[in-house]
């Protein structure tokens, strides 16, 4: 049965829009394969002339191979995405209703993506293989690294994290660098001489890396169970008096949970790496910028979600200003949550920790307001990759712009930062009014 089902899925994706779907599928796939052969030849030619520096550590090569493969797989999944999105909503429902085993359902849904990813990856991997071989990476380690890259790349591309490509890439990079540190430390201790040791280390890495891929899904499932127990009836508004209720309501959406896990993972990897390596943070200026950027981008997501998701509790809210109050509160709580690894660093770091902490708090306060403002202007939604990317760029630009302002925003007691913050919130309010947000479900009387 699986063969027939998978074939149907392939025709559904590649034969779409044609009155002769099967012929169209063969024609389109053959055309793509032809194009990729040309890409493969060009890539091979370019990479053949490229030489890596001699005597690179094997751990370095191993992690570079994982990263490169991840990048190729994620980019190919991204390229495959437009073909997958169109008119697929009823098909995903169809797959839920039809009595299939879980793996059949998964395979049927992802089959076209896997074909595209396979074709694209297959056209460029041999070139990288030759490069890695020339640089001295043993074949078993290359196979292991490539497999890890493919699995983690696919995991990131096909599961919940897939909604945020740039975050997926960021978190995978940060994660792999973290693993590289483990690998390097372990390799330096044990030595590179034994292939068996390297294989052992590779397997340990696999045991760490692969579960990560499924983590967001697992946590989401557990969370769903918790929500089921707490959300009891229609009149949830009675519960809306609790302070973080709007944030709790937003957390029911997988999109926000994914953003949270990813942002926290990036922060945690950085914090762990800094603590582990004992890197001095000084006044923490670079970390403050990273934290602010991460928080601002995450907040744009929260703001975007607020535009598209009306939790049942929203019926208790009266008017735009009341909603804004709740939203700002939720945004600050959420920003604090995202910044936790950085706050930990600020509290536990060396001599300049006071200055680091104050600077962090002020920047975070501004980043939250900035993220809310940018999210209000742009409203990035799930699967809106360009919107999310643009929101990210605007956050970066906004934070860099803040640094150029004459006000000393990192100085405690300076009113400039407070003024900016209030200005941002007022602008959000004006935008909400202007956009006619009265269409929302909160009561206006």
């Amino acid at each position, binding site marked *: 049965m699986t063969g027939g089902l998978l074939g149907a899925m392939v025709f559904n994706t590649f034969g779409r829009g044609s009155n002769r779907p099967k012929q169209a599928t063969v024609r389109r796939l053959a055309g793509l394969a032809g194009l990729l052969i040309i890409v493969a030849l060009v890539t091979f030619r370019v990479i053949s002339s490229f030489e890596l520096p001699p005597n690179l550590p094997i751990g370095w090569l191993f992690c570079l191979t994982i990263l490169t493969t991840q990048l190729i797989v994620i980019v190919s999944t991204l390229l495959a995405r437009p073909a997958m999105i169109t008119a697929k909503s009823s*098909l995903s429902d*169809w797959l839920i209703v039809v009595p299939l085993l879980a793996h059949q359902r998964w395979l049927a849904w992802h089959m076209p993506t896997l074909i595209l990813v396979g074709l694209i990856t297959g056209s460029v991997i041999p070139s990288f293989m030759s490069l890695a071989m020339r640089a001295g990476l043993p074949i078993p380690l290359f196979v292991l690294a490539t497999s890890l890259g493919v699995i983690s790349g696919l995991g990131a591309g096909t599961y919940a994290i897939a909604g945020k490509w740039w975050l997926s890439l960021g978190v995978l990079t940060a994660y792999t660098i973290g693993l590289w540190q483990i690998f390097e430390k372990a390799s330096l201790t044990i030595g590179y001489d034994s292939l068996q040791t390297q294989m052992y280390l590779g397997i340990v890495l696999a045991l760490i890396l692969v579960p990560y891929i499924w983590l967001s899904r697992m946590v989401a499932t557990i969370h769903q169970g918790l929500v089921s127990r707490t959300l009891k009836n229609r009149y949830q508004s009675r519960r809306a008096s609790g302070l973080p209720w709007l944030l709790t309501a937003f957390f029911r959406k997988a999109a926000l949970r994914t953003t949270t896990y990813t942002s926290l993972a990036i922060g945690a990897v950085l914090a762990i790496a800094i603590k582990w390596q004992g890197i001095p943070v000084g006044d923490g200026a670079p970390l403050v910028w990273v934290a602010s950027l991460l928080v601002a981008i995450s907040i744009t997501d929260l703001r975007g979600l607020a535009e598209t998701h009306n939790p049942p509790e929203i019926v208790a809210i009266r008017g735009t200003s009341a909603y804004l109050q709740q939203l700002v509160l939720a945004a600050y709580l959420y920003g604090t949550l995202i910044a936790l690894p950085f706050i930990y660093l600020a509290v536990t770091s060396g001599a300049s920790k006071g200055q680091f902490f104050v600077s962090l708090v002020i920047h975070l306060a501004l980043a939250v307001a900035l993220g809310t403002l940018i999210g209000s202007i742009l409203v990035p939604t799930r699967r809106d990759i360009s919107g999310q990317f643009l929101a990210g760029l605007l956050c970066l630009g906004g934070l860099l712009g803040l640094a150029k302002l004459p006000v000393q925003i990192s100085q405690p007691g300076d009113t400039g930062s407070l003024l900016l913050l209030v200005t941002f919130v007022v602008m959000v309010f004006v935008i909400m009014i202007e956009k006619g947000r009265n269409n929302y479900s909160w009561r206006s009387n």
Partner: protein
Amino acid sequence: MATGKGNAVKAVLNTLDVRDLSVSPGGEFVLSIPKLAIKSGHILCLAGPNGSGKTTLIEALAGLQGIVSGSVNLSGKNWLDTNLRHTRAQLGYIPDDERWFIPELTAHEYLKLMAQVYADAKSCDKSTIINRSRELGQALYFKQFDQPLLTLSHGNKKKVQIIAGLMHQPDVILVDEIRNGLDPLAIIAVEEILRIEAKRGAIIIAASHDLWWSQRLATDIVLLMEGRLIVQATTKSLIAKHGSIESLFLETMKQSLGAKA
């Protein structure tokens, strides 16, 4: 009319038991069903104004809506667990969505694929299911088996969905506005098929705006309004009390509007 009566497989006596079901498809709308039990052989028609939750309930029972709380059991087994393949193979679902199939296949290929899926899930013979699909096709006056589904008319697409939804003789049949797009002959045929399915022992839940059709077909009626279950009774008792389902509907609507005013 050949409706597969001869090959009918008696359904196992079942009860679809809905308890404290709460479904939130998005926005502020929440469907709440405190208690609803439908027994084998019964045809339950869902009535209610637009946006009352008929389709949401059908979709929730099909496993397509996230359940906020509550449970749905079929003879003690969790009906909503989409991974219980054998249990889920007892579902026949006919939605009001003409994209509900793989349009790149021909009707024959699609029905063959579905027959294989159901045969695997129910561990039964595929040819029996295919034969049944032919009988249903005959009953519904459907002949375009070799035509790609995307080129079929709206009504013929609906017929394929009906065949695919009933060919495996499910124990629970969920239909949403099944009459939409069908010609009068096919509507009569579908009505007859559903009656035969009920006699076989299937549980049938149908959402429809046509109250006269519901009155003619249903053994039980549920009236929904703004996501709440307002009335649940047998058709006979409702007719005895209100004269017709339409009268009940209009009375309830008036009361509801009066209460709001």
